[in-house]
């Protein structure tokens, strides 16, 4: 429907009336149109149409088509008879192809995503299977070996990739370590055996030298001049010294082979016993031993006694002249074990000798100054090693000496000792590590 004002023939002047032009399109007609075009068309006013600001384009006679979501919308201005326009024919067509396209795109995306997930899963699974699981099994076995120290164990990783090569390399390394350790153990054993046999067999002729020396001295001394008597007495002194050396060597070589089983040992008791053994020397030197609270450890009681006998005995022996020796024995217990410190106010020694003093037959002083075979601290060290502990010395010349001992606590001791007994070789690295960790805590 449209309306036009009625003007004069020139199209001017006042409106003489209004011409209404109506074209009647009933619903039936629309349906027919619908059916013919298979399009859903409807009439709307300009204002109702969704023109998105393109009204001017429509007015210039262009058909507007724009897609809106799933629907394609087309608009055409229905010119009224007078050339004006107020109605719009709107055709809305569902966008089936577009929807199909959209569906295909969605489908494609879904398929791609699913494929992606599948691919990632596969890759991860393959990685896990070929790499991660193998890697973790490898690292697990390597860790187990480093924790137990069991170098006879091997990593088990079959295959032909870098990981299995790595595993084979680790095994090769372990084999060579095992080989070396075995050789070391054998050489240690041989040395101990040698020391034992040598010192045992050396005692025999020495016994004779001593016995015939005695005979000579008691039977023929009156026939000798002073020089002759001096020679005999020198010889006898030397045999006594030799006997000391041999016996110390013998006890050194027996530490590992002839030690007692470990049991609970109260170090307070041990040190009390040692002090009572040293009573005479303590009296002679006016010395004192101050003992703090000491722990109960898992150890060979005879060897523990030997350790404190040697350390406290040394402290009394290497005293400053004119200064009564004071020996302090103190202990501290940590998770990892016990630290025991034996400290004196004696003559001390330069720190550079701190390791040498533990070597066998090492002496820092002339025989005429201080007696002894130079085995005492070597024996201490070896005993502590048998107990999976350690000992080291801190000293300064003229300022006394500190001996710092470590011993594992019961629980660990049981384990470690079992291991050590089985292997008969001290795990030096483990000890050193445990020692430094413990000392850090102690400090």
């Amino acid at each position, binding site marked *: 429907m449209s309306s036009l004002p009625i003007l004069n023939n020139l199209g001017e002047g006042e409106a003489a009336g209004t011409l209404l032009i109506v074209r009647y399109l009933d619903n039936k007609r629309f349906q027919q149109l619908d059916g013919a075009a298979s399009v859903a068309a409807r009439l709307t006013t300009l204002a109702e149409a969704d023109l998105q600001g393109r009204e001017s384009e429509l007015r210039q006679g262009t058909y507007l088509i724009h897609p809106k979501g799933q629907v394609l919308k087309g608009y055409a201005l229905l010119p009224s008879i007078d050339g004006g326009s107020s109605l719009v024919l709107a055709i809305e067509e569902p966008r089936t192809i577009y929807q199909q396209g959209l569906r295909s795109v969605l489908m494609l995306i879904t398929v791609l995503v699913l494929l992606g997930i599948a691919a990632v899963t596969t890759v991860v699974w393959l990685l896990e299977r070929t790499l991660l699981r193998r890697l973790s099994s490898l690292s697990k076995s390597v860790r187990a070996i480093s924790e137990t120290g069991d170098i006879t164990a091997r990593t088990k990783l079959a295959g032909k990739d870098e990981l299995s090569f790595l595993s084979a390399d680790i095994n090769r390394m372990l084999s060579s370590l095992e080989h070396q350790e075995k050789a070391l153990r054998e050489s240690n054993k041989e040395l101990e055996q040698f020391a034992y046999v040598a010192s045992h067999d050396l*005692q*025999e002729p020495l016994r*004779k030298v*001593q*016995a*015939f020396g*005695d*005979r000579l001295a*008691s039977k023929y001394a009156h026939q000798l001049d002073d020089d002759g008597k001096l020679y005999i007495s020198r010889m006898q002194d030397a045999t006594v010294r030799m006997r000391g050396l041999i016996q110390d060597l013998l006890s050194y070589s027996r530490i590992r082979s002839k030690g007692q089983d470990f049991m609970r040992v109260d170090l307070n008791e041990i040190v009390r016993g040692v002090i009572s053994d040293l009573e005479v020397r303590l009296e002679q030197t006016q010395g004192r031993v101050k003992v703090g609270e000491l722990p109960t450890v898992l150890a060979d009681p005879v060897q523990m006694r030997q350790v404190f006998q040697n350390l406290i005995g040394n402290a009394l022996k290497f005293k400053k002249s004119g200064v009564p020796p004071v020996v302090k024995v103190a202990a501290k217990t940590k998770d990892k074990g016990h630290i025991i410190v034996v400290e004196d106010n004696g003559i001390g020694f330069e720190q550079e000798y701190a390791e040498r003093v533990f070597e066998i037959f090492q002496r820092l002083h002339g025989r005429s100054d201080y007696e002894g075979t130079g085995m005492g601290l070597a024996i201490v060290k070896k005993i502590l090693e048998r107990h999976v502990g350690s000992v080291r010395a801190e000293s300064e010349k003229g300022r006394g000496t500190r001996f710092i001992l470590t011993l594992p606590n019961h629980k660990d001791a049981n384990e470690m000792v079992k291991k050590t007994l089985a292997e008969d070789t001290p795990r030096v690295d483990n000890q050193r590590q445990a020692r430094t960790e413990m000392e850090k805590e102690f400090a």
Partner: protein
Amino acid sequence: MKYKSVTILMADDDPDDRLLTEDALKEARLANEIRFVENGEELLQYLRHQGKFADKTLHPRPGIILLDLNMPKMDGREALQLIKSDPDLRRIPVIIMTTSKADQDILKSYDLGANSYVTKPVTFDELVEVVRGFGKYWFEIVALPD
């Protein structure tokens, strides 16, 4: 009288020990005769009067045996076992005299029937003491079989 009659037989391969023991006997003023053999084989031959020991007057049956454990040919352990399983010889007391202090040697010796076990002393004076001690025990206190 009985004291005088007891002969000591010492089985030891070490000539020094034989000499020193003989010396120690004198020093301890034990008048017993002492005879020596150098290994287990000789010991058994002596006791059974075989070979060079056939003459019973030159080689009288000992009243006591001093036996070293470590000897060539037949060692003291084997000799001890043979002596103690021989019904004729088993009554002769055997004193083990050796340098070994090993528990297993001591136990084994007593298991085999040794009557005493002595570790060889280090000094001569100690040896004299030991000899004097067992002289007193075996020849004065203890009654020995004839």
